[in-house]
């Protein structure tokens, strides 16, 4: 296989955007073309979960490739739920690594706020099992609430730990211009004060309002290329060095231990093994914190901390900027936002930016190995990526 490099980055604000989803995607793509200093690509992958349902737009990649005047390059849409972004990056990786293409554009885009919150919540809930979960009215916040209660009972995680994740990631997002929420929050405001229950009501016990990510619109883009092309760019060489993907049972109740996220564990193992690094080599990570509990659990499952001890590392401040292993310096899904199809590309965008040393006030010092975990379904389809800076 050939080595694959990230040579161009583009992103829109993750927020409410009053543009068609194809334009959101195309804008991110054009920023990436400019960043890479190129005008054409061989192929375009567009990650998206809901354009057909939410925006009445099918054939999204065909619309985007034309909007960017990139025809006759090949184009296709990749849908893998909230892991669509990393799945599309995996497709792009394979296309370049195999020698099929030299330059591939991967865009993730979603416009969720065209519909109201109830419709958006139901749309996301359709990724649960239709006959054993969705039919009973389960939503992702409800699923995460059940999971969190089990995790608390088993490992001693408390609501304070969950709130600490939210406070940390909101603080990180303050330095990210493109983040959805520029809203500093404190433990007093969302947990300890008499007003906390008003500021931060329960939405799916034990999860509260600030334990959940916002519903966002947004787009992100990464251009992948062969080593020969990347060396001509004159930019720091950031290699997509490891790709891993694993699945688990669709229905959560069928898992032997419902508090284990085996697909996360297996996808991470593959991504580390392919890159020839270990979890202890990672300097910065973006984990899929659609709910605060997920950042804690994923930090254990990918191997950063022993099982059941992620919340203790959080307590020690190891996962905040300036800590031993900063997690979600972008603000994560929690505060940067979660336009589902764009999320995986957005995570990788942040890691490449960090490894280039271009992350501004949220830069992780001397970062050379970065990692992303893009979590599809409720842990039933997970894609992990490892990036390594060379030179």
């Amino acid at each position, binding site marked *: 296989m050939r080595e694959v490099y990230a040579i161009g980055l583009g992103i829109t604000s993750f927020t409410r955007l009053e543009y068609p989803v194809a334009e959101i995607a*195309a804008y991110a793509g054009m920023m990436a073309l400019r960043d890479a200093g190129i005008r054409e690509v061989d192929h375009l992958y567009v990650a998206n979960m809901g354009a057909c349902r939410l925006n009445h737009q099918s054939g999204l990649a065909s619309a985007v490739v034309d909007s*960017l005047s990139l025809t006759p390059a090949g184009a296709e849409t990749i849908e893998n739920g909230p892991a669509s972004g990393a799945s599309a990056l995996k497709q792009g990786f394979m296309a370049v690594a195999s020698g099929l293409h030299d330059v591939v554009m991967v865009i993730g885009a979603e416009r969720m706020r065209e519909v109201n919150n109830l419709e958006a919540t139901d749309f996301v809930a359709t990724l649960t099992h239709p006959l054993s979960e969705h039919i009973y009215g389960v939503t992702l916040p409800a699923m995460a609430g059940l999971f969190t209660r089990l995790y608390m009972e088993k490992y001693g995680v408390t609501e304070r730990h969950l709130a600490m994740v939210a406070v940390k990631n909101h603080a990180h997002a303050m330095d990210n211009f493109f983040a959805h929420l520029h809203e500093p929050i404190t433990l007093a405001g969302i947990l300890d004060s008499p007003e906390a229950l008003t500021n931060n009501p329960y939405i799916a016990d034990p999860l509260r309002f600030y334990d959940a990510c916002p519903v966002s619109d947004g787009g992100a883009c990464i251009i992948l290329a062969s080593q020969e092309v990347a060396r001509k760019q004159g930019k720091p060489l950031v290699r997509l060095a490891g790709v891993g993907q694993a699945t688990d049972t669709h229905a959560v109740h069928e898992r032997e231990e419902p508090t284990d996220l085996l697909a996360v564990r297996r996808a991470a193992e593959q991504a580390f093994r392919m890159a020839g690094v270990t979890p202890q080599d990672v300097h910065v990570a973006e984990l899929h914190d659609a709910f605060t509990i997920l950042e804690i659990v994923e930090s254990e499952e990918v191997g950063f901390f022993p099982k059941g001890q992620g919340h203790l590392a959080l307590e020690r401040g190891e996962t905040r900027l300036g800590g031993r292993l900063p997690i979600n310096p972008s603000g994560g899904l929690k505060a940067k936002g979660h336009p589902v199809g764009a999320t995986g590309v957005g995570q990788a965008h942040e890691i490449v930016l960090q490894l280039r040393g271009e992350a501004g006030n949220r830069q992780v010092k001397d970062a050379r190995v970065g990692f992303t975990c893009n979590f599809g379904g409720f842990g039933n389809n997970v894609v992990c990526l490892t990036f390594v800076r060379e030179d």
Partner: protein
Amino acid sequence: MERQLYGYQCPKCGHINYPYRMRCRKCKETEYKDFTLVALPGKGHEREVLVLRFLALAAAHAVRVVDVAALGTLVSVELAFHLSPPVRR
């Protein structure tokens, strides 16, 4: 009914794009700048006409391909509109 078509003029090369696109089809500039909205001339050369009749809907559509000369640039425009009154068998 009065109809007016608008094109999207690239600020760099002057090419008129129709329909709207993010990047100019001619110069492929990658720096984002808003296109200028320009009214296209009301006259053009009709190249093809295709009339589609949908009996079940008791309606018809016509698709016309028209070459419009605008600011020195040739633009192909597709028009779709209802014919009135609805066609009856």
